């Protein structure tokens, strides 16, 4: 199959062409934000940003920087479209989702501009799959207005210990309460469920804590149902940064290492639960 010549001919019509030797480097990151069916994709010279939102209270962004792709060509400054993320992930994983050592799926992703479908060409072991996924009109995404200058408290820790706590979150509790403070207990996660309340404390001296920058005692509450999807990102990550700003907005940034050792980031923004907000200013 003269793939190369065909590709050269086709490429002329595309505004975006990206090539990846291992499709899992992309699917793992996208899985980490897959809690709704549709996602907004913004492509620029920097790479791809994939955004998923829910209830206007939570937003997840996955960043696939141009550097992880073997080839990343874009003809316009910015290309945006909305797509069914569930379908996209099924296509990326068409040859199976388990990572068998030695076998990788090569990916070529193309987009011809507004109104065109997203075209994927995947190959593994001599078998070729072509996918054409309809794109939709892009929506406006929320701007959570989270900037580092307004950050009150920040903790960077190893993901492992947080994984256990998040996996055991009491789902009968509507709320996850996060306390961050320069004083004891420093960092506390609390739930208030049918069986009672649970508190998980993480002291700042712990080996798991890599950086601790808390300036004020803050207690904020977030809906558990909104935060639960972030567990997907947490479980693939090696490191997480937890920050809250002066409005009680939460930013979780997950550092995920792919199979080639490259680092990608996924961030979650969550608005505090309006009904019962407590914010202490010392």
């Amino acid at each position, binding site marked *: 199959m003269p793939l190369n010549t065909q590709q050269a001919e086709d490429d002329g019509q595309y505004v975006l062409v990206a090539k990846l030797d291992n499709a899992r480097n992309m699917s793992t990151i996208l899985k980490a934000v897959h809690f709704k069916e549709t996602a907004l994709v913004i492509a620029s010279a920097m790479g791809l940003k994939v955004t998923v939102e829910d209830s206007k209270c939570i937003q997840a962004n996955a960043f696939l920087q141009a550097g992880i792709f073997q080839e990343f060509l874009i003809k316009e400054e910015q290309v945006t479209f909305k797509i069914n993320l*569930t379908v996209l992930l099924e296509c990326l994983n068409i040859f199976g989702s388990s990572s068998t050592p030695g076998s990788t799926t090569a990916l070529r992703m193309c987009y011809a501009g507004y109104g065109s479908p997203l075209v994927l060409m995947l190959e593994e072991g001599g078998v070729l799959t072509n996918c054409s996924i309809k794109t939709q009109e892009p929506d406006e995404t929320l701007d959570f207005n989270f900037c580092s200058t307004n950050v009150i408290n920040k903790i960077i820790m190893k993901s492992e210990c947080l994984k256990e706590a998040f996996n055991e979150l009491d789902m009968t509790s509507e709320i996850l309460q996060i306390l961050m403070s320069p004083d004891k207990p420093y960092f506390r996660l609390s739930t208030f469920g049918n069986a009672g309340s649970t508190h998980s404390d993480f002291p700042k001296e712990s080996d798991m804590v890599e950086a601790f920058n808390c300036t004020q005692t803050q207690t904020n509450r977030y809906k558990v149902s909104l935060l639960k999807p972030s567990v997907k990102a947490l479980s693939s990550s090696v490191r997480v940064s937890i920050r809250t700003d002066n409005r009680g907005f939460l930013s979780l940034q997950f550092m995920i290492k792919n199979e080639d050792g490259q680092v990608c980031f996924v961030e979650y923004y969550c608005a505090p639960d309006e009904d019962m907000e407590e914010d202490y200013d010392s």
Partner: protein
Amino acid sequence: MRFRGKLMDIECIQHFTRVVSTVSKLAKTCTLKIDRSKLYFILQGNVVSGDISIWCELPQCHIFTEFNMEGLSEDADEIFLELTPENIVKAMKSARNAKWVKMKLTNKHIPCITFEVELPSLTNLPRTVIHDVPVCVIPRRSWAEFQEPKLTDFDISIYMPPLKVVKNIVDRMKHLGNFVMLSVNRNGEMTLKVETDLVSVSTHFYNLTCPNSRSWSKDPSVTRTPTQSCHHFVEARVNIQKLAQFVSSQQVVPQKVVCNIHANRTVHFLLLHNDVTLQYFLPVVSM
């Protein structure tokens, strides 16, 4: 009617278990036919309703060390039983490490196949487990329904790519649509395609081989004269769940899997592994 068989070789026990497990994944209930030389697992689906059909044969001498049967009568020397293959799988689960397994057609209030399993024991006393698998005896007047389907002249035949690869792909395609278009040409190319309003996914396999026209067919009158070019695709649209069911049913990698297509009628899979043949008939669904 009598049937008794004793399995004494652990490999035969495992072989039999695997065959029945495969059948149980394809059919909830089926017909077991027993004659002097073979055991047959049969499912005659209603083609009009879009049901699948199965025909699986295994020679009795390859599993039983002792075998004895007497059919309904001298001129109808066969036994037809309706049963749930999963029940046999459950009975055979006890036999994983058995010393021997005896199978016998019995009448315990209702007709059953009784499995007597002798397990290894630390003491001198034997340990046996007995399972009674209820069966329904099929009367002679219905036997005509369970004849081996004729292998009609197919439009094309091809050896399937590894089922494991096909399984992974079909499992994903299942989530995208209800039907898949299976296309094959004489150039050794096979395509699976699912298409909906939202997405179109097609997977292409290359360098597959086509079987010799007569080597696999039992019916010597089946001839195929290639009248079309090598690149012409024969297409068949089938229910994706039913295709997924077939490609997921194998526990071991079969020696040969042939796919025969009779466009607009049937997709026929013929699976050969050692002495076992399994035929799976998928009706073609029109647009």
